[in-house]
């Protein structure tokens, strides 16, 4: 299933793109076809993968605004997984480096995306140093 990000502050999540229950601030778009160029889209597709014994997200695929930061995404995952506020969450790209918390996901997608999506691994402890 696909989910969508809304403006910071009020996360309204739905598991199914077809039936959002509350007023949306932005439309959820279906997965884009291959002919659309990345620059024209405001959202990019992110696939979240859990590492080790970190809980797995029920919804793994998300359409995320390009300008969203890694920190914002980490906070979203923590809230979704109902993690303790004190628990840290580490995000990794290519299973090799942790991007800066203020890095935009759009930049990571442009540089490290494959098959039309950005795969990010998340972990409660340091996985790849």
């Amino acid at each position, binding site marked *: 299933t696909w989910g969508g990000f809304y403006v910071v502050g009020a996360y309204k999540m739905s598991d199914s793109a077809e039936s959002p229950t509350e007023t949306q601030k932005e439309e959820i778009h279906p997965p884009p076809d291959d002919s659309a160029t990345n620059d024209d889209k405001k959202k990019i597709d992110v696939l979240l993968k859990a590492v080790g014994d970190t809980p797995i997200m029920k919804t793994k695929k998300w359409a995320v605004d390009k300008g969203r930061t890694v920190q914002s995404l980490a906070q979203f995952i923590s809230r979704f997984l109902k993690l303790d506020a004190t628990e840290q969450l580490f995000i990794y*790209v290519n299973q090799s480096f942790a*991007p800066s918390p203020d890095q*935009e996901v759009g930049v990571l997608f*442009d540089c490290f995306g494959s098959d039309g999506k950005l795969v990010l691994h998340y972990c409660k402890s340091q996985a790849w*140093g």
Partner: protein
Amino acid sequence: MADDKDVLRDVWFGRIPTCFTLNPDEVTEREAEPYYLLLPRVSYLPLVTDKVKKHFLKVMRTEDVEEIWFEHEGTPLKWHYPIGVLFDFHASNTVLPWSITVHFKNFPDVDLLHCPSNSVVEAHFMSSIKEADALKHKSQVVNDMQKKDHKQLWMGLQNDKFDQFWAMNRKLMEYPTEEGGFRYIPFRIYQTTSDRPFIQKLFRPVSTEGNPHTLFDLLKEMCPDALTKDGEEKRFQVVIHGIEPLLETPLQWLSEHLSHPDNFLHICIIPTPTD
């Protein structure tokens, strides 16, 4: 004519004369004198400002001291950007020494990342190197290094040891001869006219026809407005380590010689001064 290796030394030892003054709103027990320091362009503020912090803490009461942060003309300075980049972007064409204001209160969470210790700087630095190698070598070179090799890169930077750093870093600057260069060039372009932090995209050092790409080619692809059109007045300067390299310079050469220790080529596009 300077040897290519001399360029590496010149880049490493670049310094910016800086004057640190305490924010006048801080509560002090007595007047704080300004503190003068030569800052290494290639390092990061938390690594080189211990003496600055000590100097100002002398006039403050402990209860008035929170996390230190720095600001230039009202703009909080991001500690996780190399010092030289901060200067070229914010203060290139201002009178030296560079004026930085020191704060111990009201940390601007929105603008700055927290930096509770040097290990945070180390983690950030190593991540940048890994990210750069993901672009240059699909992470193969950095992954083949041992933990102690990674530590050597960090210690070299932290202790200002050029030889120690480059003994390891030279491996990250190698590439298969038949390729003509890295897979992609790690770069970031900062523009004063943009609301985005920087441009970072995939860009190859060699064209499909086998011709080396130049700095001009990169800018034409990423921010064509920065380039001067024929007959027009030059509106922007393209600055790397405080200088304007010729636009015909091969990008691969720039990446090997003018990158920061984090292995990224940081390029500032600033308005041409109108004096």
